[in-house]
């Protein structure tokens, strides 16, 4: 187990280094940060001065090395756009994104798994047909459109829910939560639905397919022959065996929920790291973009690590192979 984790950790470090390198290579083609930093009145010499002070004239490897060494100390520099330390900007915005991601992921998993089981067991019922059809909408409609549609119906026409922002918040140290106020919770509903819809339908379809596969297998037939009640067959025997791929997908999807909440955050003006990133891209705010990409990389690497360890625990075969490998 220890060797397994160690090996995975080593791979993770390499992945992070590659992420940093690619991020840095991309930034050279995003545009000129000075354009957005300097106002209309900044003359050429002054811009050259700014460029020199920011170290933008240094060779690529020098900039990359400085970035890496500072990043290791948790220092991502000062945002070009907002003139504030990047680490603090991201930490300020992270709670909003994590709360949104947490609620969406929970909704996606709970509703997705339940509906998946339902449509698998009652695959011929009319309601299953309706759910399956609706799920196609969830998979195929772009997030942007779903968000705007929800805003139009629930904020503009019905005026039940706010169209943007996070409502009132309460601070716990540096963590700013929207869970404790009524307006905070109301503000959460539309973005959470928007963000979870795709994952929800994905999980539902996956659970359904796996479940139907398992239900056809011999051991379920034998269980039925033994006269076990449906509840035990469905949930203890069948569901448990569908979970391995579901865990993988859910884990990876959780990463994308955190990392790619960008569209949802933009549509709802949700003050998370995703909208911070979009604003930074437009302003070529390299320090924020770099830090954000590193953060996203870290999230994925960590989640993959946890998923791998979970496999190890859920699936006994892996443990056997691991030992047989004799590491």
């Amino acid at each position, binding site marked *: 187990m220890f060797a397994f984790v160690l090996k995975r950790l080593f791979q993770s470090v390499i992945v992070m280094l590659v992420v940093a390198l690619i991020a840095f290579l991309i930034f050279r083609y995003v545009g000129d940060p000075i354009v*957005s930093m*300097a*106002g*209309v009145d900044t003359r*050429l010499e002054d811009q050259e001065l700014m460029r020199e002070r920011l170290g933008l004239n240094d060779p690529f490897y020098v900039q990359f090395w400085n970035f890496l060494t500072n990043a290791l100390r948790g220092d991502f520099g000062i945002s070009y756009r907002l*003139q504030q330390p990047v680490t603090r900007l991201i930490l300020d915005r992270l709670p909003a994104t994590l709360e949104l991601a947490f609620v969406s992921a929970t909704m996606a998993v709970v509703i997705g798994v339940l509906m998946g089981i339902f449509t698998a067991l009652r695959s011929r019922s009319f309601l299953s047909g309706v759910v399956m059809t609706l799920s196609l909408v969830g998979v195929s409609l772009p997030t942007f459109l779903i968000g705007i549609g929800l805003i139009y119906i629930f904020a503009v026409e019905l005026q039940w829910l706010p169209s*943007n922002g996070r409502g009132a918040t309460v601070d716990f140290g540096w963590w700013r939560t929207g869970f404790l106020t009524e307006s905070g919770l109301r503000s959460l509903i539309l973005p959470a639905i928007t963000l979870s819809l795709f994952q929800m339908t994905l999980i539902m379809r996956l659970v359904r397919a796996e479940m139907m596969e398992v239900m056809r297998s011999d051991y379920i037939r034998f269980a039925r022959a033994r006269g076990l009640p449906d509840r035990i067959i469905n949930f203890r025997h069948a569901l448990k065996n569908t979970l391995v791929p579901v865990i993988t997908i859910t884990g990876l999807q959780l990463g994308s929920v955190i990392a790619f909440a960008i569209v949802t955050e933009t*549509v709802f003006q949700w003050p998370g790291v995703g909208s911070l990133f979009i604003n930074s891209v437009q302003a070529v705010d390299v320090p924020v973009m770099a830090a954000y990409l590193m953060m996203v990389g870290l999230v994925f690497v960590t989640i993959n690590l946890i998923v791998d360890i979970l496999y190890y625990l859920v699936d006994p075969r892996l443990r056997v192979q691991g030992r047989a490998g004799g590491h």
Partner: protein
Amino acid sequence: MKHRYKLLTATLLSATVLAGPVAAETLRWAKAADATTLDPHAQNLGTNHNFLHHIYETLVDRAVDGSLTPRLATEWGIKEGEPDVWVFKLREGVTFHDGAPFTADDVVFSLDRARSQASNMRQLHVGVDSVVAVDDHTVEVHMKGPSPIYPENLTNTFIMDREWSEANNVVEVQDYAAGEDNYAVRNTNGTGPYTLTQREVDVRSVMSLFENHWAETPPQVTEIIYTPIAENATRLAALLSGEVDFVQDVPVQDIERLQSSDGITVTTGPENRSIYLGYRFGEEPLKSSNITDSNPIDNPLVREALHLAVDREAIQRVVMRGQSDPTGVASPPFVNGWTEELDKYPAPDPERARELLAEAGYPDGFTITLDTPNNRYINDEAISQAVVGMLARIGVQVNLASRPIAQHSPLITGNQSDFYLMGWGVPTFDSAYIFNDLVHTKEGSYGAITAGCIPTRNSIPRSSRWKPRSTSMRATPPSPKSGRSCRPTG
């Protein structure tokens, strides 16, 4: 030849929207972007100035018609017998939000800070030699030479308190590169009618009425809640659902719909910005053209043909949905130097344009690439698309290269573009601002947006900048590093 430079200009209209009566004490105000920093001298951006004008004040202000009005300065004029010295009489009885009195010393401090190395406002003050406090309420600004338009440059230079700045270690404008955090980026202490009571960047800012403000009649709005909402559709949804009262940056295609909604008033007015097409001239062949032995644009006949091919009124009608003023010069009417004659433009005449092209030796036209931004000005990319169609009618095949402004801008300043769309505002309300940046040959701090080239021995003296001149690319190839901003304020 007055149009050798501007093929098309259109003054855009900015749209503002009010929902319901403004009698409410709190005004909820939404805009596309937040102020990036609260340090008044760190960035010269319209969004920042709009925000900070509530909190900080300037020596002089501008009335709706463009004329200068007193603010922290009550009178100003050139000193008797000394043409290089501007004298400002300051308002008495003004206090900063922290209670400190406003004196001439604060003006000296602020103007010095605004023209310091790290300040982004310094360009407006390059002509200043020194700033001297004569007494508590009189300041003399000694210029390096006669500067009749200097007060025009002061409408966005905010006055800070010297003691507060010293106490909070913000005497210097923030140095990004040093990686330092700066107190003034997040905190304010001005003399303006509102104090900043809450600030979450990109999320929400709250301003409350400053009780001790000097104005005799305080504003009716006692609290302003400022919410940046980047997404157009969401911003309008917030207005329609009554979550905000006042929205700026209304997309032109939504104006009609808003006008027909109950309780919403749409107000439009001309913006201080002209959209124009620029092109490379000089003898060197174009980079993006099939004519490889000469530069077709260098031929006045070709320029006249392009001029006649663009239908400004069609752009106004179709692309801008009526929300623009077609014009013949890159300057709005309220800017010094504007004349009706310059503003005239010919009726489009593709027939004549084709004849001119043939006369110039291009009977089959030529190809050229038009570089356009796609996220900077209202409908920027759509305007360029319309131009492509119009030029195709006279046989000029235009390839459209559309980029975000962050990538578009370096092409212009680095002299990489043959043909481009840009916008230009004139914050000083004086056409010197247009001449210095758009017309002057690239030289030192001048001509950064000029599509011309490095001057050679043929370069003309500054006094006749408007006239055609012969320039060449050969002298010194421009360095792509010499980028320059092109984001007009306002």
